[in-house]
């Protein structure tokens, strides 16, 4: 396997993009990434597109050739492949792109992620996203995604003494960072009181514990590291790409408060990159719900099991310490267009590692980690990135 680098990144604004279609946002992100990489489309070997539910959301399946076509590349007859894994579709597409370049099958590939959640009413979108849990044995009995994560939160509070305030501090921190991100769905700051007093969704989680339903697209260009200098002065090495899966239903897990899929994907990723959690300065983690963020920092190994709440509440991940988490604003504030999330995380990390993150820049960041989760953790994907000096 050869070393792989990220050569270019791009993304649309995330949010309620009423005036823009799925194909428009897909093309915009892809072209931004190609321009950023200074790569001609004639050099491309393949397109991978992460997407969760276009068929249910916009009545369109078979979307990879659609985006290829409207990118003006139908005549190239490139392979264009959709990758689906719920909310982790974007990171899974990246994994496929990495495999293709690392193996030598293709030299340069575009990996995109796109989702259009606001073309259906909220209730319909919520029904569709609940399909990433076990429909027959969870959803049919009244489960929703926030409901399942609410049960994780309840058990975490019971086992480790995690408080509502600690959970709420995750959302406050996310909006703080979102306020500095021009692409974010939410650019307003919120107070701890606002989170605590928001209307309940699935107790103990309230409205501000849940990431929004967003539209958006993101894309990256991958290529072999040995040829990267030809395209960019700041190639970012994709140092590890790991996927791990677990039981579909939350109730079948070994432990309700640990995502074994994240534990394993992270462990394998650190082994692959010869790195440890302490080496990471910037991380983009899956905070679809405030409780998901606590599990992420614990299961990746940034803090001990059960210590996520106090660590967040003390502001340990807000830039004062060694590690900054979700400088983009995360899913909570930057937004949650499901299939685009895992790719957008990489866009933020690459900008951080290149030193191009402007107001959000973490000075001297050289190692970054992305964690993307589907459903309640039946799939986790962890990627590691390094600045190449």
């Amino acid at each position, binding site marked *: 396997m050869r070393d792989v680098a990220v050569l270019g990144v791009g993304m649309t604004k995330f949010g309620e993009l009423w005036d823009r279609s799925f194909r428009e946002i897909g093309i915009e992100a892809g072209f931004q990434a190609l321009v950023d990489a200074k790569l001609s489309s004639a050099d491309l070997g393949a397109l991978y597109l992460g997407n969760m539910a276009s068929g249910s959301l916009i009545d369109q399946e078979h979307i990879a050739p659609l985006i290829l076509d409207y990118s003006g590349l139908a005549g190239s007859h490139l392979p264009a492949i959709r990758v689906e894994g719920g909310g982790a579709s974007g990171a899974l597409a990246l994994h496929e792109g990495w495999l293709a370049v690392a193996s030598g099958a293709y030299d340069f590939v575009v990996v995109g992620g796109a989702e259009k959640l606001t073309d259906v009413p909220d*209730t319909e979108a*919520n*029904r569709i996203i*609940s399909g990433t849990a076990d429909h*027959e*044995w*969870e*959803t*049919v*009995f*009244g*489960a*929703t995604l*926030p*409901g*399942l994560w*609410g*049960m*994780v*939160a*309840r*058990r975490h509070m*019971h086992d480790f003494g995690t408080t509502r305030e600690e959970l709420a501090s995750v959302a406050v921190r996310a909006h703080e960072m979102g306020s500095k991100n021009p692409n974010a769905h939410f650019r307003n700051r919120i107070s701890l009181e606002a989170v605590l007093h928001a*209307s*309940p*969704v*699935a*107790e*103990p*989680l309230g409205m501000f514990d849940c990431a929004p339903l967003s539209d958006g697209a993101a894309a990256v260009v991958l290529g072999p590291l040995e040829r990267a200098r030809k395209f960019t002065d700041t190639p970012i090495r994709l140092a590890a790409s790991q996927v791990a899966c677990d039981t579909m*239903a*939350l*109730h*079948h897990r070994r432990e*309700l408060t640990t995502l074994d899929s994240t534990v394993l994907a992270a462990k394998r990723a650190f082994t692959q990159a010869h790195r440890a959690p302490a080496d990471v300065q910037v991380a983009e983690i899956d905070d679809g719900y405030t409780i998901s963020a606590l599990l992420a920092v614990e299961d990746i190994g940034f803090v001990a099991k059960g210590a996520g709440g106090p660590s967040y509440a003390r502001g340990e991940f807000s830039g004062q310490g060694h590690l900054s988490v979700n400088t983009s604003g995360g899913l909570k504030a930057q937004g949650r267009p499901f299939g685009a999330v895992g790719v957008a995380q990489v866009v933020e990390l690459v900008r951080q590692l290149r030193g191009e993150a402007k107001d959000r820049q973490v000075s001297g960041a050289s190692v970054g980690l992305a964690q993307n989760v589907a459903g309640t953790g039946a799939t986790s994907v962890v990627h590691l990135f390094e600045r190449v000096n």
Partner: protein
Amino acid sequence: MSIARFWRETPHRYNLGGSKCPTCQTVYFPPRSVCPTCSQHRQSLGRLVPFQLSGEGEVVTFSVIHEPAEGFEMQVPYVLAIVKTPEGPMLTGQIVDVEPHAVEIGLQVRATFRKLREEGEAGVIHYGYKFAPIDDHHHAPPRGSQEEPASAMAQAPGRSAPA
């Protein structure tokens, strides 16, 4: 959801019919055709035998749902829980016949046969298990008319639709 898609799960959703691996004795719910636990994983295909859960269990965690799943709009707020059965399997279901805020981790519950949800006024009505506290002092009268009268799981009909 098509009728067949729900109907084919009737023995499990109505009667808590699971399966058991004859080699390692592990019980599964819903039933599985391959044993994920034992060393005979490959040989276990098709050899697991039906096993009936008692319907008793303990609340391991729960959430009070205010923004409902589709078809549950008339039931909010409702309690969604993960219940651990004495036979081993854990499963997800509603806790009923109790004030939502009286539910706690460790609550002892028993499965009852109820209406789960309906697909609109003229649509299919889905039945299955919910859980109610065993201890009497937790009991509260059923809220509103959305609940079917309780009946023990053991008396619930099998493959035919309930009267």
